[in-house]
């Protein structure tokens, strides 16, 4: 493993461990009041990982679109690799959002799936980015693959906020657990700390994965290049 990605991975992992500790042992349990009765909502603990995963996914998907645009503008292969790697990391995290989201839905509402705006949004994103990989594998020529990949990564990135906005329209009633925004009880103190630590940990860890993926892509290209050179003589 490259030094930079090793450092990032360990720093991320450490922060994530700290996040677990803070979430379980320091942050207070979430409590909802229903008719004077206090109910502990233990499932809220999922929040400390679910949301950082979601934010990381969005960061990398948007980065994928950004580097895609850089590739089209400059035609430097390295940007195309950066775009592809970013979309792949983003996609892994989108899948994680789906898994954790489904588990949270089950814990909170007793059902595995709810057509709820944000969950639906992420399902759409999952399918859209699955399309990105299908598209790439369906194009043969390397340069066309890069070009169409970059273009679709931009279209998809533009569509991410639009999908979120559409989810807010009234046809889908928002029932996502708004744990902290209810009645002004916004995140504070230990809860916020636990969340932020997890958040940064996740971002660092994802970045280390990103660097590894990029290394792999570059090494692959070197190999292809060397093979060709050897054949040409």
């Amino acid at each position, binding site marked *: 493993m490259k030094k930079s990605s090793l450092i990032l991975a360990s720093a991320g992992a450490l922060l994530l461990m700290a996040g677990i500790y803070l979430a379980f042992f320091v942050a207070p349990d979430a409590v909802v009041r229903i008719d004077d009765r206090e109910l502990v909502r233990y499932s809220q603990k999922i929040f400390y990982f679910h949301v950082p995963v979601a934010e990381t996914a969005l960061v990398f998907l948007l980065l994928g679109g950004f580097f895609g645009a850089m590739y*089209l503008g400059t035609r430097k292969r390295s940007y195309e690799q950066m775009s592809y790697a970013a979309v792949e990391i983003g996609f892994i995290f989108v899948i994680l959002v789906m898994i954790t989201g489904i588990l949270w839905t089950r814990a909170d509402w007793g059902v595995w799936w709810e057509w709820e705006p944000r969950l639906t949004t992420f399902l759409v994103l999952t399918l*859209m980015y699955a399309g990105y990989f299908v598209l790439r594998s369906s194009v*043969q020529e390397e340069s*066309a693959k890069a070009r*169409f990949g970059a*273009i679709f990564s*931009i279209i998809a990135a533009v*569509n991410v906020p639009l999908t979120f906005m559409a989810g807010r329209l009234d046809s889908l009633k928002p029932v996502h657990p708004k744990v902290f925004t209810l009645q002004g009880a916004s995140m504070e103190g230990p809860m916020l700390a636990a969340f932020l630590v997890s958040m940064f940990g996740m971002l660092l860890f994802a970045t280390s994965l990103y660097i590894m993926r990029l290394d792999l892509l570059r090494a692959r290209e070197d190999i292809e290049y060397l093979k060709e050179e050897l054949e040409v003589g």
Partner: protein
Amino acid sequence: MSAKVSAGKQVFAIVKKDVLAELRTKEMVIAMFLFVVLAMVVFSQAFGVILNDLDRVGGGLLWVAFLFMSMLGLNRSFVHEKDEGCLEGLLMSPIDRPLIFFGKMLGNLLFLSIVELFAVPIFFVLFRLEMGASMAGIFLATIFLSNIGIACVGTLLSTISINTKTRDLMLPILFMPVIIPLLIAAVSATGGIMSGEELTEVYGSMRFIAVYDIIFLLVAYALYDYVISE
């Protein structure tokens, strides 16, 4: 030969050429129309029970039919260009790339709208729906506004899908997730109109559709050069 060719003339020539070819064969528009009507028949048989509640689900049924029908047409729209190498001929002529996009998009918009103009009355008759004249105006406006987005995203993505190995299969996979925000808004708007909801909510959805249209027109304008030329 004039040095600068008028952009309007070029766009118009592309639309005219597509319309002429379509008038000759009529294969696309008729197939699209039959598809929509058949879809309605299938819906009526598949969802017999909920059809009592058509005020609320009717908008959804209509959009499902329109969406799949539009993909049928969009898939065809670049086949002529690609098969005889015409796209290369087009690219070698002194036309700005975004103009090719606008020409193809306007053609698709036209075909889509014509088919829907015939399909909507049939939909209302078959499902025994009624609507006042003032509401009908807003209803058609919503459909047309959505068509702009569908034609725009569809033309952009079908230019990509025509270059892939799987061609026709690729378009739905790319197109549907990208069009879903528009679909949500369109269903909410038409559904709102049909069930007699407050117009403010309908206008909210229509505003979203307009924003979506503008954003993707800009995206297509910026990206089309890269989509179409190497």
